[in-house]
């Protein structure tokens, strides 16, 4: 396993207001001197599902991602943590080209899915997104029935030959999302009438209905209560048997519970990535340590 020589240069003139310091004055001084340097830990894997090399993302003139290289393994749950505004969502949205919808966003670097370039000109974002699904922070069911929500992607891609097959896919997806028993009598009621946690599970069901290979989740439980959160975390663990999952979260407990590997982002850079256990027990980079011990962020 060789780590690419990706020297991450810290811009010392960079305004560090985004670093939310809660520690003492001496901590502050430490922080400002601290060089982020190269990504520490285990960023690259063998036989990975997704390979990202030297990713740079800009919003207009502003750079949001600085030279990140990271692999995501098959059937792995990768957790991404880091202070607000450090570029977790931006990075995640590069993986299914959702950033294409933001006109000022420019993406550089190489992104490979099973060795295929995601940003290749011949790559159709429609096909890509059917392989790399996404669940958003705020549950966003369509204002249609529960059934139609789940069936939407299936119909879109023509994945069911007939009504019976469609029914089967809808039921199976709802079951896997742990929602079927709660809604089986209300399949034709609007999806927007469900509770927040149910809506989020509906969105997950909708995503897995088209059977993607990778599922990206951007803070999927931040709007949910602890019970709904626990349900979804269980679900993530189950889904990882079949899918590769990248999840952004603000809860370190959640990262610790669901993920195999954890990546710590800081000001657009990937500071540390390692097996979840070692990140939380023996963080190698002082910034990571500060963050997980709750000194800032």
């Amino acid at each position: 396993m060789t780590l690419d020589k990706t020297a991450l240069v810290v811009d010392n003139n960079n305004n560090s207001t985004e670093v939310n310091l809660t520690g003492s004055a001496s901590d502050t001084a430490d922080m400002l001197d601290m060089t982020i340097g190269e990504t520490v830990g285990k960023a690259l894997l063998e036989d990975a599902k997704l390979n990202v090399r030297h990713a740079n993302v800009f919003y207009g003139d502003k750079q949001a991602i600085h030279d990140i290289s990271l692999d995501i393994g098959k059937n792995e749950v990768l957790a991404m943590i880091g202070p607000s505004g450090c570029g977790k969502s931006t990075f995640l949205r590069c993986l299914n080209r959702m950033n294409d919808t933001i006109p000022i966003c420019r993406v550089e670097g190489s992104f490979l899915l099973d060795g295929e370039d995601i940003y290749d000109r011949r790559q159709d974002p429609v096909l890509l997104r059917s392989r790399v699904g996404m669940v958003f922070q705020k549950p966003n069911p369509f204002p249609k029935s529960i059934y139609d929500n789940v069936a939407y992607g299936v119909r879109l891609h023509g994945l069911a030959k007939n009504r019976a097959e469609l029914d089967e896919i809808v039921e199976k997806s709802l079951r896997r999302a742990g929602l079927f028993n709660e809604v089986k009598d209300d399949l034709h009621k609007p999806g927007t009438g469900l509770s927040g946690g149910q809506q989020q599970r509906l969105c997950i069901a909708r995503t897995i209905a088209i059977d993607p290979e990778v599922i990206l989740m951007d803070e999927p439980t931040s709007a949910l209560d602890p019970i709904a959160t626990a349900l979804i975390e269980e679900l993530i663990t189950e889904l990882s048997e079949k899918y590769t999952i990248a999840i952004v979260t603000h809860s370190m407990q959640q990262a610790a519970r669901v993920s195999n590997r954890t990546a710590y982002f800081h000001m657009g850079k990937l500071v540390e990535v390692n097996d979840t256990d070692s990140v939380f027990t023996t963080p190698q980079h002082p910034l990571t340590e500060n963050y997980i011990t709750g000194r800032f962020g």
Partner: protein
Amino acid sequence: MNHTEKIQHSLKKRHAREKRFRLYGLLSVSISILFLLSLLGDIGFKGMPAFWQTKVKLDIHLDPERLGLGPNPDQDDLFQANYQRLIADTLTRMFPDAKTRQQRRALKNLVSKSAAYELRDAVIANPQLLGQTRPFWFLAKDDVDVYMKGRIDRNLPESQRRIKDYQLAWIDTLKSQGRLKQGFNTTFFTNSDSREPEQAGIRGAFTGSMLTMLVTLSLAFPIGVLAALYLEEFAPQNNRWVDLIEININNLAAVPSIVFGLLGLAVFIGFFGVPRSAPLAGGLVLTLMTLPTIIITSRAAIKAVPNSIREAALALGASKTQVAFGHVLPLSLPGILTGTIIGMAQALGETAPLLLIGMVAFVADVPHSIFDPSTALPVQIYLWADSPERAFVERTSAAIIVLLLFLMAMNALAVFMRKKFENKW
């Protein structure tokens, strides 16, 4: 003074200000309601009588000889026979006191000129009537009608009234014989414009308006919605050309409608040879006028669709077009329809541009297609408002009532749709 006292002190002032503001609000609302009510009251008071109309019963002896018919008249003979003479005969028989020319003319003018046509149609429909004496109900002339509705004061000196003393005597006689009655004015809805007030109706203008609206709707709606959808969903953002188009659309909404009329005259009629006075020309001009309204309201409705819906669909692999037509358009449709209805209501009441493209002509026929010459409701109102006859005054108001009812129905529909479909997400 401690904290609570300070707050209590300022509270009194705040409450007083609130009360004052509420009073101002109430006052301005009542003033506008007062204006509205007096307007509606005035129109209603003037216009309601137009929905009733006086009829006269005459016993007509259908004498073939007086009609100048031979023993076996054919359709043509029946059609061309002089029925007016039979009516004049009947009236002269009933009121032999009419001696002077002027009086005899006045006598004939008790019933509408349409009476002869009614008689003709009855005879053609049933030639057996010839030779018999039958009672017929004819439209009364507008002066009789107006008098019957109490709009002519018989206590005025004779020289100041449209109806002379001898006419009053005839009307009184007819009344006492039960030969006058008032019924619902169906003529107003089945006839088109006419020189004779008692025969004038709004059917032609109404049909013209509907055809014009049809042209406007079928052009302005798709063009406006597609333009809005393109500008919101597909056009490059922060592009100079797109900004320019946006500014121009907003400016277009502020252009006085008469300018659109001039443009329509020059471009559609002058250059493209669209028939003058036709609903097609009117519809095209009103399309220009309605487009900015539809585009602006549609864009607002499209903007209101939350981005999370677009992202959800895109993330499932929908293409941009599928998102636009499968999600954005259906979700913004209530708003778009509301805007369209408001735009159409504006267009329906628009008069100035139609005057310029010749829809102000006197048209006694109901238009059958968008190429036939025609008028429109607001133009008809304008025409009638210009006529001196008392009976046209009430018809003007009646036409306004019809137009207002229509506009209110359209606005109610817009409100209903907004209520029914709002906040789906």
